[in-house]
């Protein structure tokens, strides 16, 4: 599966921004309307809700595929993860796919532990 340019931060992103700074890029591959959201370095309540809000807005706009990019994410907490379940629910209601990309191995283990991986596609970071 080709994820495309969402694997990299868009040029207008400040990589040092400490909060989740949900940055979304939008692209169309074939007939799929894909939205790519970049999570911040710490996935907590604030950044999780920011991602959730952005996802819901894009799903309302007709996105078919939500890609959450965790390339910058080093630490996650259970509240942040639990909010992602809201994203998954909303996507399921809209018949959209959810893909988590560039997830570090430790975060992937947490997603696995809490059962998120049953509902999403997950791609880990390449070392």
């Amino acid at each position: 599966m080709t994820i495309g340019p969402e694997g990299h931060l868009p040029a207008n992103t400040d990589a040092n921004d400490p909060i989740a700074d949900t940055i979304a890029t939008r692209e169309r591959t074939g007939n799929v309307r894909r939205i790519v959201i970049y999570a911040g370095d710490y996935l907590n309540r604030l950044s999780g809700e920011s991602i959730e809000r952005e996802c819901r807005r894009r799903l309302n706009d007709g996105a078919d595929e939500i890609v959450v990019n965790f390339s910058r994410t080093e630490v996650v907490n259970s509240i942040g993860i639990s909010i992602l379940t809201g994203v998954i629910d909303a996507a399921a209601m809209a018949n959209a796919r959810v893909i988590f990309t560039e997830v570090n191995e430790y975060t992937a283990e947490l997603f696995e532990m809490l059962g998120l991986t049953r509902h999403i596609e997950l791609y880990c970071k390449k070392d």
Partner: protein
Amino acid sequence: MAVAGRKNTLSRCASDGEFIGRERLFAELITHSTEGQGGIALLAEPGGGATELLFQIFDTLFSGGGNTVPVYFSFRHSGAADELAGRFVRAMINQTIAFRNSSAKLLRAGISVEEAIKLAPAGDEPLLRCLWKYHRPQFKLRGPLSDQRSAFSLLSRAFEAAARAEAAGLDFTLLLDDVHLAARGFGYAAFQCLVESLNFGGVRYIMTGYRRFLYNAVNVPFRPVSRLGFREATQATGSIAGRLGIHLPDDVRDLVAERLRADLPLIEAYFRDASDRTTAIKDFRNAEQHYLRQIFGGRSAKIIDERMSYAVDSEREIRAVLTIANKLGDDPSCRIPIDSFARDFGLKTKRAQRLFARMNEIEFLNCGFGRISIPAGDSPQKDRLRIRYKLEIGSENRALLFGKTLLTRLKEAPHLMERRYRATHCLSLVDLLKMFSGRRAVPAALLDYGKFAAEFRGVPDSEIIGDLQNGPLISVPMIVFATATENIYPPISNSLLREMSAVGFGLVNSDDGSSRDEIWLVAEIGSKLEVGRNEAEFWCDRLEMAAIMSGFPTYRIWLISPEGFDDEALASLALRGAIGSSRRQANLLWRFLAGEFKTPEAEDNFEEFEITIPMEDNAELIAAGIAEELAKRHNFDAKSINQIKTALIEAFINAAEHSFSPDRRVHQRFRVNDREFRAVISNRGIRLSDARSQAKGGHSRRRGWGLELMRRLMDEVTIEETDDGTRIRMTKFAARPA
């Protein structure tokens, strides 16, 4: 106990070595007497030797070469208020002068205050003259109860002498003996007023009085002075006998100590009478015969009757006490309501309540919640009451009663000692259970005899200790109160000695961090071989009955036998959720709980950090960062470090999210070495389990993930409820190379 350089002035002990036990308390009291401030109350068990303790303090200060003047004053033989007031001021003055002149003779010289003041050093004379002039009683009372207000005024004035001396800079310590007699003689209000005047005046003092009186009567730090333990009591008995020139074999010495229940004044009286009558105490027959003589009317009987006079005011009250003691018999579970007894006996209720409250203070009877009972076990007091009842109310023939009682006593004596020896060698189960107060888990092999026998039979202790470090653990409750089973279920005494069964009231953590009650009932049972199924079930039934009759909802039975239990017995215990251990396991458990198994290396290598972080946005990352640094320094692998960080973040979030903490702080303690990372995260506020129970029903999908993550990421996680918050303990063991 030896006190270097001390000469006897008041002490009855012939030599320093004769004062036995209480080393730590004595040292503390000496320090208080010379450097301390304010008062200390010694809560004395009647007959425990508190007076001699004060004498020892007095003698040490008197001849120790220091500057502190010891002033001893006893409320015994108080007489009228004016006599007592005069005696107190005289004691202050004369003892100060005796101390300044280093003359013990002056204490006993019987000279007048005016003569004594002439011997005072020039520096002290004005103060001492002033004390006598302004604080001695200015008038005489006609009788102790004739004029309460005048008595009160005299006593207050006299005791203000101490405050005045303190204000004038005299360095002294008051040693007040038998203070319960002050309340008895002049009323509780007068006693309170005396104590307040000492406290208000900043006077340094040590007071002793009956513990059941003093406990609620004064608001100063207190220390208990109980009777000596059996071993020390036998030493004291031998020592007193030796001082009075009586030589007795060890077994007889032990019998006397046990029969007189380590009551030192009674032991002294026993041997003094024997010495006066030149009675040889060579064997059990002599000892018992002399004991009965004492109880029928010797010096010991006089002491017991004197103690009883603290409680009774009239012949009618004496008869009431003797009658009720006889009704109660030997059954400590029997409780007679004061009201109904007073009605039957024709005593006014208030008078009966006062009478039995005082009988409770001298510990002849127990009195509480309007009911009277008799203390468990034999005692000279009980014997005296019984004999007096039979002679004075039953009008029995004295010689016949003596002969019959002596025969019974002689038959009983070996059994009395057998019970004592058994009790001395048993495990002290109450103390063992109390040691569970800070533990939540212990090595399973220390409790479960099946595991122990399979792994450690025949293995030396030193090897077992090493192996236990890595063995599986078993949860134990945090015991908050432990007592002899006999105290909650007296019939157990028909099957087991008091010391051989105990009950511990504990709390155990549920999986969600909340606490629930769990009561442990433990018994030490005798057996030469591994206990079989029938015997194990017999003892389980006994303890189960105690649990049911006491209304324990959840309880656990724990049996300890010298040689453990056979397989059938263990299977039977397992069916009841009971535990079976051997005596050796219990001894090892004791050592484990006392901290003996911690190897010095393991302790020394720990790095320890404490940090308190405010509950602010993203503050959890600070804790995680510190933990990461610590773990890196001890070579934890990256995965473990990440797991520790995440678990810590979750613990922090739990505290911040749910606690409504009043101080908004999270306290974290890390102990790290190359093998393990231990973290304790605690906070004040609503406890985690309470917060979870209130949150039930909403957002269920998002609840509980934090705890789940902590448990899965760390190797050990314990959630504890503290008095006012939550404490989470977590341990991560370093990954070992494959």
